[in-house]
């Protein structure tokens, strides 16, 4: 069987090389050091820049999903096509715990994250046994199974109608009484969670484990020869990535007060991949830029014409062809080359 045409030796692989390396010198080290505060600052401005608060919250949520997904795709080099399963499961567990068990919102969020993470552990353990295209296909197949289970278990998940009936209107954290229906207050509460996720990912990337997954992306054979248990590291990366996507799922459930069945479908997985690549796989803030660009394009173009998908598709093709590093990745590379 061909090892792809022509010889794609390790040297030529990883076209989407990481733009920021922890140990790179100069301004880039500064950027890495201050990336979390800078990102959070950028997120604070988002609701004032974008046309609508609801769009801002969506960018926030899909940004967190893509940052979680990027941990696996951009930093470990594994193209999974099933991450909608963790996003959707996080949302469903949050909704189900409130609707059927009447738990407070923070318990629901915690359970959603843990449930999604657990599912990621299971699907990860099964799919890590395969490699390359088969890995993408296994994750797609297993995620579709989760979709059909949710479709069939309609008394729990509301089936094709989606899950309803758990609107969170008031939140009390540390003595603060927040009206969750007010778009701005809701945005900043969800942004706090997003900031937490960004900080968690940044810690992982700066940690020794961060170096391990980047080594695996660079050259899996050599990583194993260095003494790393590659399978275990991949599984950890897969599970951590699933946890963060599940967190985004819980935020989405709280934001929309419904859990649509489509959140588990592979179209959502495909969208997550597109956003991450558009923004810049392998870079820290790239996924957020990708989510912003994708949703903004979708929102703006759908005003001009109902055929907005042809524009989004074409832009994506151009990026794969000419800007594999994505918007943010290309920006960093350009900044570095100056």
């Amino acid at each position: 069987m061909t090892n792809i045409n022509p010889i794609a030796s390790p040297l030529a692989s990883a076209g989407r090389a990481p733009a920021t390396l922890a140990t790179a010198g100069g301004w880039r080290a500064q950027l890495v050091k201050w990336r979390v505060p800078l990102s959070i600052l950028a997120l604070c401005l988002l609701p004032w820049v974008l046309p609508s608060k609801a769009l801002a919250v969506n960018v926030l949520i899909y940004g967190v999903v893509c940052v979680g997904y990027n941990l696996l795709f951009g930093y470990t080099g594994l193209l999974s096509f099933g991450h909608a399963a963790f996003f959707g499961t996080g949302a469903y567990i949050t909704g189900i715990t409130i609707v059927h068990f009447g738990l407070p919102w923070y318990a629901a969020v915690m359970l959603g994250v843990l449930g999604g993470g657990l599912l990621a552990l299971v699907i990860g353990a099964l799919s890590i046994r395969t490699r390359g295209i088969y890995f993408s296909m296994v994750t797609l197949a297993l995620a579709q199974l989760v979709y059909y289970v949710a479709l069939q278990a309609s008394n729990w998940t509301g089936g094709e109608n989606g899950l309803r009936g758990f609107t969170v209107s008031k939140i009390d954290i540390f003595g603060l009484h927040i009206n969750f229906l007010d778009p701005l207050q809701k945005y900043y509460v969800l942004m706090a969670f997003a900031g937490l996720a960004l900080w968690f990912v940044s810690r992982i990337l700066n940690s020794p484990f961060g170096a391990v997954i980047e080594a695996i992306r660079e050259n899996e054979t050599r990583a194993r020869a260095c003494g790393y248990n590659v399978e275990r590291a991949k599984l950890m990366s897969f599970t951590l990535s699933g946890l963060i996507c599940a967190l985004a799922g819980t935020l989405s459930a709280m934001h929309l007060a419904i859990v649509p069945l489509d959140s588990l479908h592979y179209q959502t997985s495909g969208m997550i991949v597109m956003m991450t690549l558009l923004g810049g796989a392998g870079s820290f803030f790239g996924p957020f830029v990708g989510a912003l660009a994708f949703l903004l394009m979708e929102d703006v173009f759908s005003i001009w014409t109902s055929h907005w998908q042809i524009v989004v598709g074409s832009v994506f093709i151009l990026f794969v062809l000419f800007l594999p590093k994505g918007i943010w990745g290309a920006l960093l590379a350009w900044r570095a080359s100056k």
Partner: protein
Amino acid sequence: MDFSLIAMQLFSGIALGAILVMAALGLSIIFGMLGVVNFSHGAMFMVGAYAGLWVASLTGSFWWGLFVAPIAIGMFGMAVEFLLIRPLYGRSVDDPLLLTFGLGYVLVEAVRIVFGSDGIPFPTPSQLRGVVNLGIGYFPIYRLFVVGVVGAILLALWLLLGKTKFGLIVRAGARDPQIMRVLGVDIGKVWLLVFGLGVGLTALGGVLAAPMRTVNPEMGSLVLAEAFVVTVIGGMGSLVGSVVAGLLVGIAVSMTALIAPEMAQIVMFALMALVLLIRPQGLFGKSGVQA
């Protein structure tokens, strides 16, 4: 559950299997020979159906549509390979997959712009209308015709790849393109033709399926899922695998429909996940496939 019902169910499972094979063939060839996963496969299937429809409405005959559309779309496939896929060779294995994912979006929306987003009728050709009594039940003549065409296509492909010089070059190129270049074979041209052949076959599948299903812009997305299931179970890159897997899935879906019809689609994905976990390279794929 009398015998004739089970026999009829088995037969319709085989016929459905033939349709699944036709839908998966193009995907398996393109992946097997080029290592490219074509996520726009479903969209190409749909574009083939529309092309068949357009040619048939101009010439007023289904047969012209069946003949001309696959060739035209095959050439379109070659243009796609030349302009969009070729720059990606040598880059990471995910890039063609991601590019064709975007291409799928573009093709679906383009058809919506040109032909509108509601379904367009594609009546069964008059000679092939009606049913035939097989003793165990009634079966549409058109579907028997489709099973026949699929059989003929498989035979032709087997001869082309197995017995002709071009076939030898294609299979060798799949094994080791570097050596082929050393032997002076313009492997680029071979890939162009193979991609065109794959897309052409997919378009032919579209034209054949059009009379059975309504022709609409979204008909491709389900075909993509079915084709992946069949190709992966059969073993990426193995044509024999696709044929056997297609029939296997067709019969599995058909038998499930007897007991628990709503589980039909779940069975497909469950079968795919099962095969991937036990034998990642699929039933007939070669192990150690790094793609």
